[in-house]
């Protein structure tokens, strides 16, 4: 299901607008990236930066008022933006799987685990109830649920948060999708469970040869799991590169600030926690130049004049006119 060079997802110049009651929010503005098989790409940014919107746009599940107004989304050889609803129905849950943030509300409270996990198979593979049930048990075993046969007849509220998230994962993987989108998959879980779930993701990604888009605001999650990182701010991509490159050779001032605000074990207790001053801009009336300029200590008039282009090499791009100094070669 992938193009010859192993690229599973290719997003090019994506623009998404959301029509609200009194205004139009430009939630995603000209974002481009690719994900290859067996690669985890972390999409990070604060709340409201547009990262979840991208995930929903790929699936064609934008909320009422949301529309893709530019760019393309290619899955394998197909441009999903050109697909009608019927075509998208065959893609969702089949070629693309998604795991959402809150496992309790994401699962139907009155349907058994077995029915819910097997449902994609019944929809896309025409599986009989019994066959779906059998496959569901296998999937539950795959995601590490103990006693999978017994879980089939239980209900979501009977399971713990971690178990529910595994169930959501099993459901997403049922039809062996080429792409897995994980939207804040661990945010609602406690720290130890977070670790376990992320390990699971990594293992299954390799086993099943999927491409993974990991959407999160947690830099720690990204550091441990992602091969490449895309940093978003106010609807635009500001920095993109390999994980090591981003963390150890950060260039964009926003990414620098983000990394700075992660509390560290080594920070002395008397030092206040660093947080980025100011607020993200109003996306219904975005500023003309660099969107981070208003909160950036290094911004100049040049920054505010026009949106900065991408600098650097393809392996590590950053849209910043006054970036962090590159380490001496």
């Amino acid at each position, binding site marked *: 299901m992938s193009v010859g060079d192993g690229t599973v997802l290719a997003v090019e110049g994506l623009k998404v607008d959301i029509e*609200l009651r009194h205004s139009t*929010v430009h939630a995603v503005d000209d974002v481009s990236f690719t994900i290859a098989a067996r690669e985890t790409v972390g999409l990070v940014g604060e*709340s*409201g930066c547009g990262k*979840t919107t991208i995930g929903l746009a790929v699936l064609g*599940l934008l909320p009422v008022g949301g529309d893709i107004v530019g760019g393309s989304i290619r899955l394998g050889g197909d441009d999903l933006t050109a697909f009608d609803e019927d075509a998208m129905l065959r893609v969702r849950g089949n070629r693309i799987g998604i795991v959402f943030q809150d496992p309790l509300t994401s699962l139907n409270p009155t349907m058994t685990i077995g029915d819910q996990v097997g449902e994609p198979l019944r929809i896309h593979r025409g599986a009989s109830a019994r066959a779906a049930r059998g496959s569901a048990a296998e999937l539950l075993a795959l995601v590490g649920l103990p006693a999978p046969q017994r879980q089939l007849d239980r209900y979501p509220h009977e399971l713990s948060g971690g178990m529910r998230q595994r169930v959501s994962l099993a459901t997403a993987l049922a039809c062996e999708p080429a792409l897995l989108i994980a939207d804040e998959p661990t945010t609602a879980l406690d720290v130890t469970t977070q670790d376990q779930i992320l390990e699971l993701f990594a293992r299954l990604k390799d086993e099943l040869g999927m491409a993974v888009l990991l959407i999160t605001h947690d830099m720690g999650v990204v550091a441990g799991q992602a091969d490449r990182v895309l940093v978003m701010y106010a609807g635009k991509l500001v920095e993109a590169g390999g994980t090591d490159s981003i963390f150890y050779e950060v260039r964009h001032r926003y990414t620098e600030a983000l990394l700075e605000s992660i509390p560290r074990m080594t920070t002395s207790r008397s030092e206040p926690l660093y947080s980025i001053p100011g607020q993200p801009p109003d996306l219904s009336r975005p500023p003309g130049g660099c969107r981070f300029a208003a909160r950036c200590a290094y911004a100049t008039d040049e920054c505010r004049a026009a949106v900065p282009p991408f600098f650097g090499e393809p392996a590590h791009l950053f849209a910043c006119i006054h970036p962090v100094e590159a380490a001496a070669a």
Partner: protein
Amino acid sequence: MSADLEFVEGRVTHDAVPEEGTVGQVRAWRLAVDVFLENKLALAGAVMIVLIVLFCFVGPLVYHTDQIHTNIEEATLPPSWDHPLGTDDVGYDQLGRLMVGGQTSLEVALGAAAVAIVLGVIWGAVAGYVGGFVDSFMMRIVDAILAIPALFLLLFLAAVTTPSVPLLIGVVGLIAWLVPARLVRGETLSLRTREYVQAVKVMGGGPTRIVTRHIVPNTIGTVMVNATFQVADAILLVAALSFLGLGIPPPAANWGGMLSNGLNYTYSGYWWLIYPPGIAIVLTVVCFNFIGDALRDAFEVRLRRR
């Protein structure tokens, strides 16, 4: 603005719980008002109610008729310049009677709703806050009274006494308090565990303070919605009572009595005895229902918690 941004991220998340401090509350109220004002039906309903109230209470000051003394010679006259809505079977001018009757109907309905709300809120808040066996018992009492249809209770009462306006207000109110009690109790149960309530407790606030200052104000939304429906129901209930012949006796007027009286003449073609009171009832009740519905939508927006 931040409430809108939650829409942008594609779903109503847990983060969309409105802040419980004053700033969050103000913003949430504004959103609720917005939603209410957008509902054209509710707006029309509200305007209509104002007009109806003016008609009933200010109307007689402008348009004088005698609603006490019967005048058989002028009975069942069709609409004319002298009597724009005709006269009824004992000679009362229908238009004037519609106004005066409206006063009674509205008074009873609004009065009963007020009684019901006050009683219901107190009962429900106490039950919900105290919890345990007391709560269980208080709610069982509510269930028991609810089990008996209001109409039955009222009929029984009417068979035993002669209804007057204050008595009707009291009795209808005493039956209507049950639903608000249930609603408030439910809300209190969930609000009781909120963090800001715990905070007040820690600060040394006593139960009365917590209930009156923190819990009850947060139930206002649900209570307001229910209050409008209570008014609507009360009008219909009293009308039914009048129809069954056990309402307030003449010369007092009320829409239900006028309608049921008029229905005696269905086959005589005296439409002016039937449609004006009937339409008055339906119109008023519909308006209150529209308003209640819109209020409920507006408060659902505000209380988007889970």
